[in-house]
């Protein structure tokens, strides 16, 4: 908590989709991160050392979003990595 009583971090649950999982810490598909309250998906990726471009798009509450999306505290978001062509 900050001096003003506001939390100075938020928890976001990440659900990583596709083979891009291998580039995430621990190669886990579902895990939680604690980040700054206004952190966007891009900033979350930066904090994890994952290149932003490895997330093709974000899904929040069943709706597609881009990587500028700022998830709410406690939210679970899906990170979709790129597929190869066929």
């Amino acid at each position, binding site marked *: 908590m900050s001096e003003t009583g506001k939390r100075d971090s938020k928890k976001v649950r990440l659900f990583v*989709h*596709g*083979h891009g999982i291998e*580039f995430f810490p621990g190669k886990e598909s579902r895990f939680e991160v604690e980040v700054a309250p206004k952190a966007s998906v891009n900033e979350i990726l930066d904090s994890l050392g994952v290149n932003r471009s490895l997330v093709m798009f974000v899904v929040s509450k069943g709706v597609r979003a881009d990587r500028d999306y700022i998830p709410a505290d406690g939210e679970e978001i899906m990170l979709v990595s790129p*597929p190869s*062509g066929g």
Partner: protein
Amino acid sequence: MSGLYGYSGNFLRVNLTTGEVKKTETPESLAREYLGGRGFVARILWDEVKPGTDPLSPDNRLVMAPGPLSGVFLPGSGKTEFGVKSPATGGYGDSNVGGHLAPEIKYAGYDAVIFEGTAAKPALVVIDDDSVEIRDAARYWGKGCIEAETMLKKDLGEDFQIVTIGPAGENLVKYAVISHDFGRQAGRTGVGAVMGSKNLKAIAVRGTKSLPLADPERVFEKGKQMYDVCFSKPGFKEWTPYGTAGVTDWINEIGSFPTKNFWTGYFEGHKNINGQALRDRIRITDKACFGCPIPCGKYSRAKTARGEVYVEGPEYETIGMMGGNLLVGSIEEVAYLNYVADELGIDTISGGNVLAFAMECFEKGIITEKDAGRSLPWGDLDAGVFLLEKIARREGIGDLLADGVRPASQKLGKGSEKFAIHVKGLELSAYEPRYAPAMMLAYMTADVGAHHNRAWAITYDVQVGRDSLEGKAKRVIELQHIRPLFDTLGLCRLQWVEIGFELSHYAELFPMVTGWDYSWDDLLRVSERIWNLTRAFSIREIEGFGRSHDYPPARFYEEPVPTGPSKGKCFTMEQLDDLLDDYYCLRGWDSNGIPTGSKLRELGLGYVAEALER
């Protein structure tokens, strides 16, 4: 019965010259050392195609092989491998197809079908369990792939699985496909041309037998679990609606979308040909292969000024090669070209390259309107259709283009070799590689020529650094063992690549199916054995084969990318050599890219070492 589990127990040999049909037991040693699918193809071609054989002669073989996991109850178990000595490259060639063919071959009782010789007149081979007939195919000859498949389904029955060639295969176009299931293709390396050279218009297969499994109950339980895992994957609902077309925007974002014959890596109009455009404007329904829970196929209806077509697709590769690479700017027009290529039996990857090459030659005055029979402006649907039809029938300019960009550029000269986009004679898939060293190396070293399915390494470039060469060779080799292993087992790799299905499931399942205590590392070892065998095949068949065959066209080391996120990026020859040096060293090959005798023997390929030493 051979007593093998996971295998149907027989090889079927069809001699189209003599009409002889012969069934032999699947050799257990071959199954243990090469598993099936691509492994069987590689070993059979090595053993049976005499050195120096003309790929379009009766002496070449066309091998059709499912894998040990094909037809088993698990996600994506519907892949069949086709293999030949490639008329496109002169070296080893294979290509796989999904659909519903592989299980049918297995249920009919076969682990591999080998076609040899050439029929005196157009032939259809009908395999109905133990009954195998060579029938007259005159009434199907000249028909398009989908038209012929429709006719054959009507004539033989819906429960036959059909593969056909189109006019391109009949006319020996060196990038002709083998088509199946109304829009799926074994598309690469000219397998359709070899089928055409044998006067073999179509193969029909129906199987009603059961498949022996080492532990059927555990296979069933494991299979159910694998389906549950697939359905539970977070991307299942997000990826399926778009299929492979969903990656179009991302490839543009990273500046690797082939545009204007790989002149650049970013297409301004990509939003008009992406997965969303496909989904919103032309998709009718989704379409899956045998046993697949993630239907990536998109069946579409496209209306254009030329008329309306129904087509399966377009897949991402087609969007890249017949969209951005030709500057065709609407998903409807890409789908139209897809339809024309599918019906004629032309690979959309090589075909898209060839059309782009012709358009660039036209732009530069190397091909004139008089040469071509019309103008060939970028982005022109009519020009694209015109060229595809000319190529398929080898008419006019089409005869020159029907052999692929390498021979065409060698004949045209005038600097066109620099923008003939191929490696080893096989045209590139839809990833501009100048700002992706691992992807570049993957193209350079793929055993069949420049094909993405051996090692799709571009995400690795993005994550670890696109300017760095470090670690790229190691990564490419890892992928070159994992991805072709799917072709060996008879599986689709998209469950793994697209929705993150864990590889450990396959390792767990394999012993349950076969009764063999193989670990994942054991399976990868087989894959490495096959990789060295296919390299050796090309060394044996192509005079002077080695390092010089692993370089890309000059565009990639002389012309920096002019626009987009990859602007200014280009390889130097020194960088390409560094990549190859690392790669050869890690593989245990010499500096000319030749596997050493000790490496081959270590992999159980002593017979190959002896042949190469001779």
